[in-house]
């Protein structure tokens, strides 16, 4: 029987961001997958080279809307390594707290999205309502709901007062109760189970060979977590569990993330109890000395890496960013083979894709071998002419 091709993306309800998977189907069964990236490249790596070190923090924060905190954490640690300084202990703990709040927010968001991909809208609505609570806490600390702009080279910008501490603890109690409830829903709801169990199986050796990272790898029983493997920012002083499951399917990825939310809640409590006193920021020179540094951070989606090279000038010489979604794309292509069209949303969602993380490098329109930037009115004129000519080149 011949196969036929179906494109999913760049615009498709299952994928909120511009990304394309070209599926080769045999009936309802997927035979082959080809990913295509690059629809929303913004040229951030190049952009970093054109900006100053401090501006780089805010540019890196805008790589991804959801997991922005690990990006700034990673960038700041990399620059601090170039300076060869350690930030104050209190700042390190505050970084952990804001990172874990970000992880809870990201995982809950993902859980809701999964509910939506499975057509379970009620679940989605409930989870997202409780996600509001985390965003309220982030707002309490920093004044922003999603992008806290907390990290700075040399420490953090906002401190946590005892009053905030109380509010965070209260919020954690509430979230723990809700997350446990959602876990019981996931474990007991038959329609979620039949749609996720034994779907998108990625066994342990494939996960290792394809370099899967983060919750995807941990759901395939791979004990890997940068917070353990390569502790940064005092993560080695906080006791917590490494969550792994051996089912290797979408169901395991759900459980890993739900359990990680519970772990994060415990980490935040632990940090608040142990929170040392002292300054939250160390003043550093504006430009770091020449050198290079590589830093890995565990983002909600997995291992995030920054390579920063300085030549002693105003701007970084090179900033390389490797985001977790890019690392998981070979894995997701492998997972999809042999499953149904109906499984596509659940499987793609199961790696928690974040394409705006993955894609960072394109900027101006460069059709026809010429470089130029269009103003809005020029673009409009061009589009009108295009359609007058019947929409063809």
């Amino acid at each position: 029987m011949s196969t036929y091709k179906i494109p999913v993306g760049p615009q498709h309800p299952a994928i909120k961001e511009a990304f394309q998977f070209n599926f080769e189907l045999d009936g309802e069964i997927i035979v082959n997958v080809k990913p295509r990236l690059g629809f929303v490249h913004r040229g951030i790596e190049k952009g970093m080279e054109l900006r100053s070190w401090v501006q780089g923090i805010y540019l890196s924060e805008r790589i991804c809307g959801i997991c922005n905190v690990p990006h700034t954490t990673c960038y700041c640690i990399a620059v601090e390594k170039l300076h060869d300084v350690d930030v104050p202990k209190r700042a390190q703990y505050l970084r952990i707290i804001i990172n874990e709040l970000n992880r809870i927010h990201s995982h809950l968001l993902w859980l809701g999205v999964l509910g939506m991909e499975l057509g379970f809208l009620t679940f989605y609505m409930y989870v997202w309502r409780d996600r509001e609570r985390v965003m309220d806490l982030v707002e309490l600390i920093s004044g922003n709901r999603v992008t806290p702009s907390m990290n700075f080279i040399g420490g953090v910008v906002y401190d946590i007062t005892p009053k905030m501490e109380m509010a965070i603890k209260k919020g954690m109690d509430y979230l723990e109760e809700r997350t446990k409830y959602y876990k019981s829903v996931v474990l007991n709801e038959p329609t979620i189970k039949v749609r996720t169990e034994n779907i998108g199986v990625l066994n342990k050796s494939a996960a290792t060979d394809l370099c899967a990272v983060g919750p995807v790898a941990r759901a395939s029983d791979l004990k890997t977590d940068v917070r353990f493997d390569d502790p940064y920012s005092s993560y080695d002083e906080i006791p917590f569990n490494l969550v792994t499951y051996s089912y290797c399917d979408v169901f395991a990825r759900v459980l890993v993330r739900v359990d990680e939310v519970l772990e994060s809640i415990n980490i935040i409590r632990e940090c608040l109890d142990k929170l040392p006193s002292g300054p939250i920021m160390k003043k550093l020179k504006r430009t770091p000395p020449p050198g290079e540094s590589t830093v890995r951070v565990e983002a909600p989606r997995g291992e995030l890496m920054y390579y920063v090279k300085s030549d002693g000038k105003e701007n970084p010489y090179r900033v390389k960013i490797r985001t977790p979604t890019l690392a998981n794309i070979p894995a997701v292509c492998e997972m999809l083979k042999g499953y149904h069209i109906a499984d596509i949303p659940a499987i793609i969602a199961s790696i928690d894709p974040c394409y705006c993380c993955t894609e960072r490098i394109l900027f101006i329109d460069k059709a026809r071998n010429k470089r130029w930037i269009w103003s809005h009115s020029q673009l409009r004129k061009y589009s009108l002419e295009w359609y007058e000519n019947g929409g063809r080149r």
Partner: protein
Amino acid sequence: MTTISREEFILKELKLAFNDKILESRIAAPRYIYVTVNKETVIPLVKFLKENFGLRHIVTITGTDFGEYIELIYHLAIYGRTLMVNVKTKVPKDDPEIESIVKLLPGATLYEREVHDLLGVVFTGHPNLERLILPDDWPEGVYPLRKDWKMEGT
């Protein structure tokens, strides 16, 4: 008996196996090693790490333009991804060619394509070195991450 750290142990082993082919090496921080080699040595080095230190994970490949040459850094993670060995090598800019490591590390597929797209390094032996990131109508031979490519209006 003096105990030596894992980082020192690895460097010692590498120097034993490759002696003068290791052009430069340093321990930058705990768990971070930098090794500089010629481009011909990358494949044997990766093979050596794979056979002796359980290398399965590649974090990414960084390409940096340094004027007359392009520096490639293979960020490799060994010991269950706890220790990073950053293998540096240089390829000349007018003939940027290097052998692909996809056969040894299948996870490097997309990273090699990314570097190929943005810096124009040709990885020989790569199964499918087509466009990954740049749009389909992007002109051939223009590599945006090279330093001689300037963004308009800056």
